[in-house]
């Protein structure tokens, strides 16, 4: 979230699209209810189904799964056509005035630079015109035909309400009513918050769904505002912490990226990741990359990392390609992976195409499961009849199960969606032999290190050289790890403006990432967490709920990254002169000498407004991007592409590309895609309030509340197939078949898409062949093995099926 949970109460309009927070985030949803009560907020829900969130909404539109960009592109066009834009904000705080290169263009669904054979773009033309000093050229009048504003206007001209309606299935009147509600926040004293979750990410255009709402929010001037922002509602209690700490195949902690083979040494790695400012006087915060990266290396390797040895950059792995989960299971399926460690993860239920996953896991020599529960992955080799009809004798994979603790059985911090690091304390001892994850990993590490020490082996240096400073080596404590992430001074850290002033003495915990250095005098395991455990102690354990501004901003409650800042880009909540846009939302402001206010200002404290330091400090041009430059795989503007399985033969928005032209599809998986002729209905998957993923079916009460798998079918579809509520039905895709109970509902209606009826089928995911509920089929039996073009999140939200009475 750019904002945070309690801030939702400040919104005038709450747009829920790509999520269902009443269902999946019921506790956080209280703040939507509060916004309705306090601000008379309007709740707008756009979803393939009439959900529990829709049940309390003021406006609802049912759209066809996978057409969010068509809808949001239509919103962008409507805002531009009706001049529902916060002009001063857009001019000063976005790249609308920036001039684009002459060779950038777009035609019939493809941007310039497409290579069909490689299914990827040469993105060099998606860039600004630069002047002699390397700064971007701008036209503050927004009239130049090459400026981003005009390019955006041209790009979305096709997204008329009529075409949007024809593609999404949302009636024109409903679409226009929702546009009006959204447009009501283009004024400085009204804001809209956008709440989304996996309903946007789990598409082949997932990242661009979020880009699209970012554009809408920038045009409306809602970024940085209390009650505004683009807010990802995270799915697990610590999935935010997972990404923060870089537990992804391409990341290092703090959103630093893992080197690739193209980065042979430290200098080339840093040069590529340390941008130069694209406008004069901008903060360009990633210019500090060397400080963050070198401090991370010091945290990894301790005394062994020094300037002389490039801080042991050579000890880091260099990826030859991305190793996302789809890639890994593809390699496993090809028999190229021997062993797999599966920690707090149930991939046979959570990665698409179960049949492929089962075949892949069966090719492993060994599989290690670290989990508190008996997951389906851990028993993938057992025959469970229909839901898992395998031959155990044919599977030779050796499975090790290491029981771990649940969250209430350990100390530690959880990072919530709003970036708050909240410390929690162990409430109970784990049962039996269960151990904490850190203890399990430490035992494995120490044993492996001992093997390397005794037997040598290929490149033992990083294993032998890893700093391991824990008091009890086989059981690093949560407090030790937290202190390490925060970081400490290795040598005295002094103030660059006054070398006599010592900011932190050697050995002390650092107070802020502003004290990190690139000379090896500081160590920090995750720069964005710097400030969470200082010399003053554990800031995450603070529990002062006082709210001085009345805006739900509680600086003394836990600790928020970065720098305890609660709303990102909050400089943008004030106008260019430093006065809050809305006098009722005084978050940060220029007090004549410095930036001040209820939140930690996202701005250099002494940056006078006349200096025109723009609020989006992580971008080298300082402004928010309506045009994403070359950062997105499939284009600088979000463009509608159909899901990989679509009921349409052509993309009505551009005939040269039906589906995302830059999405990766492995050869074997193309043959496993179905067509609308065989699979006429559009399916989508989702979660229910009663369950949490595949976990709570192991607990009795949630199992009582939602005991058995079902599929939601609209009344018209049920009639077409002669199905009644409670019937057992078979849902089939090109990849497999599942048997479930039918729930016939008025809440899913047939949509008229390109003049023809399209039926939507809804599949909640929670059941499996382990646990206390009625045994069920894993829904990913049906889903296609293709992901988002940028980050490879699988397309669970839009695919084709057929439904018949079983």
């Amino acid at each position, binding site marked *: 979230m750019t904002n945070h949970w309690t801030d939702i109460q400040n919104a005038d309009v709450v747009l829920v699209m790509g999520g269902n927070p*009443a*269902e999946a985030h*019921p*506790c956080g*949803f*209280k703040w939507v*209810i509060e916004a*309705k*009560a306090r601000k*008379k907020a309007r709740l707008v829900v756009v979803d393939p189904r*009439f959900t*529990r*969130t*829709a*049940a*309390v909404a*003021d406006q609802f539109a049912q759209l066809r799964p996978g057409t969010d960009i068509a809808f949001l592109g239509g919103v962008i066009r409507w805002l531009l056509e009706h001049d529902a834009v916060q002009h001063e904000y857009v001019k000063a705080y976005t790249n609308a005035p920036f001039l684009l290169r002459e060779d950038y263009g777009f035609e019939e669904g493809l941007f310039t630079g497409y290579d069909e054979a490689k299914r990827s773009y040469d993105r060099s033309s998606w860039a600004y015109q630069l002047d002699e000093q390397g700064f971007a050229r701008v036209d503050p009048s927004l009239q130049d035909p090459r400026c981003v504003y005009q390019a955006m206007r041209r790009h979305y001209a096709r997204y008329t309400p009529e075409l949007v309606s024809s593609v999404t299935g949302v009636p024109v009147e409903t679409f226009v009513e929702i546009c009006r509600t959204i447009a009501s926040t283009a004024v400085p004293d009204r804001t809209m918050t956008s709440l989304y979750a996996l309903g946007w990410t789990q598409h082949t255009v997932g990242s661009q769904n979020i880009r699209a709402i970012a554009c809408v929010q920038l045009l409306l001037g809602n970024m940085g505002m209390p009650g505004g922002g683009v807010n990802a509602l995270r799915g697990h209690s610590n999935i935010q912490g997972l990404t923060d700490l870089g537990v992804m195949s391409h990341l290092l902690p703090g959103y630093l990226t893992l080197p690739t083979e193209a980065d042979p040494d430290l200098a080339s790695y840093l040069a590529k990741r340390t941008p130069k400012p694209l406008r004069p006087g901008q903060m360009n915060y990633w210019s500090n990359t060397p400080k963050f990266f070198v401090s991370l290396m010091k945290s990894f390797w301790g005394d062994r990392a020094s300037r002389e040895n490039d801080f042991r950059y050579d000890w880091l792995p260099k990826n030859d390609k991305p190793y996302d989960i789809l890639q890994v299971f593809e390699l496993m399926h090809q028999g190229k992976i021997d062993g797999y460690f599966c920690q707090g993860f149930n991939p046979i239920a959570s990665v698409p195409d179960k049949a492929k996953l089962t075949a892949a896991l069966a090719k492993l020599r060994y599989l290690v499961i670290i989990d508190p529960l008996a997951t389906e992955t851990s028993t993938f080799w057992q025959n469970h009849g229909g839901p898992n009809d395998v031959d155990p004798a044919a599977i030779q994979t050796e499975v090790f199960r290491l029981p771990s603790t649940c969250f209430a059985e350990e100390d530690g911090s959880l990072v919530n969606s709003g970036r708050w690091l909240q410390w929690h304390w162990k409430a109970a001892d784990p049962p039996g032999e269960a151990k904490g994850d850190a203890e399990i990993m430490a035992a494995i590490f120490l044993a492996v290190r001992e093997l390397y020490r005794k037997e040598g082996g290929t490149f033992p240096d990083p294993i032998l050289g890893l700093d391991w400073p824990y008091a009890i080596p086989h059981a690093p404590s949560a407090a030790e790890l937290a202190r390490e992430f925060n970081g400490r001074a290795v040598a005295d850290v002094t103030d660059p403006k006054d070398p006599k002033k010592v900011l932190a003495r050697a050995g002390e915990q650092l107070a802020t990432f502003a004290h990190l250095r690139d000379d090896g005098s500081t160590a920090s395991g995750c720069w964005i967490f710097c400030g969470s455990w200082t010399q003053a102690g554990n800031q995450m354990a603070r529990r002062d709920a006082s709210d001085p501004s009345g805006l739900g901003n509680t600086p003394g409650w836990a600790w928020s990254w970065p720098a305890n800042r609660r709303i990102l880009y909050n400089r943008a909540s004030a106008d260019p002169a430093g006065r809050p846009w809305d006098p009722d939302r005084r978050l940060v402001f220029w007090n004549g000498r410095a930036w001040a206010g209820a939140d930690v200002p996202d701005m250099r404290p002494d940056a006078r407004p006349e200096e025109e330091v723009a609020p989006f400090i992580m971008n080298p041009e300082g402004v928010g991007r309506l045009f994403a430059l070359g950062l997105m795989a499939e284009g600088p503007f979000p463009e509608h592409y159909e899901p990989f399985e679509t009921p349409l033969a052509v993309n009505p928005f551009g005939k040269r590309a039906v589906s995302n032209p830059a999405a990766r599809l492995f050869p074997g998986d193309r043959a496993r895609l179905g067509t609308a002729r065989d699979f006429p209905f559009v399916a989508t998957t989702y979660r229910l*309030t*009663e369950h949490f993923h595949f976990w709570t079916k192991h607990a*009795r*009460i*949630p*199992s*009582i*509340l*939602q*005991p*058995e*798998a*079902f599929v939601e079918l609209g009344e018209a579809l049920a009639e077409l197939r002669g199905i*009644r*509520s*409670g*019937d057992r039905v078979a849902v089939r895709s090109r990849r497999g078949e599942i048997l479930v*109970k*039918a*729930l*016939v*509902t*008025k*809440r899913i209606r047939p949509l008229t898409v390109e003049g023809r009826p399209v039926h939507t089928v809804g599949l909640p995911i929670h059941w499996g062949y382990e646990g*206390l*509920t*009625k045994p069920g089929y894993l829904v990913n039996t049906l889903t296609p093995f293709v992901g988002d073009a940028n980050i490879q999140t699988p397309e669970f939200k839009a695919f084709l099926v057929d439904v018949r009475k079983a």
Partner: protein
Amino acid sequence: MALQSLDVRNVSARTSPPPSARTTLEVAKLIDVSRCIGCKACQSACMEWNDLRDEIGVNAGAYTNPPDLSDQSWTLMRFTEEEIDGQLRWLILKEGCLHCAEPGCLKACPAPGAIVQYASGIVDFHEEDCIGCGDCIAGCPFDIPRLSRRDSKVYKCTLCSDRVAVGLEPACVKTCPTMAISFGSKTDMRFAAEERLPDLRERGFAHAAVYDPPGVGGTHVLYVLPHGDRPEAYGLPRDPRLGGVLRLWRSGTARTAGVVTLFSVLVAGILHYMRRGPLEVPPERPGGKEA
């Protein structure tokens, strides 16, 4: 569960006067249906606090699970899909005992002490005195109490009388994430309920209303209903009243008639004795036992 801090106002099948030395607060639970998202946290909390575990059943094609109230499910989210004024509505009602001011169950109950009404307004079942006759089920205009197949006793929501007795709110109130359920004095809850109506009307719910039916003397569970003109769409009776037979049965006329009948029988007996004298046993005849 007779608790010292809960003064009793009425007890089934007993006429002794209630204690009256203390003044205790009349309470109510307010369920604002417009804030409810049907998450079933109240159902979970009810099971947790009261140590209840219903069957892990089947899905019969509905979100409502378990399918009905039972001896193990004292509250239930009931989901109904309705088209109202051309708009689809998903009505979600937290079902459970309404704790009537004039409880039909208590009036119908023939077992002394099995149902009590506290001065707070809570109507509680004391299963140890329940004889399992089911009269309370027939007497309830809301169809709430359920006979257990396990022990042939009747169970329902206690409004967490054990928690309320020690100054806590009911478990469902504590757990509700959207604060759709609140708890306090009946006066405060009634006020809070009325306060919600202008906002709902402004949002297009022209008939939003508070459900506190006078036919049962008002209730200690109140609902804010966005479609207040159509309580039956949510599964609530439009105008609940105690049944005619039950009212007659428990009315003053019936009692007077009973007393008169009793007295007449007594008088008739005495008169009969005075005129005919004691009953004389005829002398025993030999072999009479074999007859």
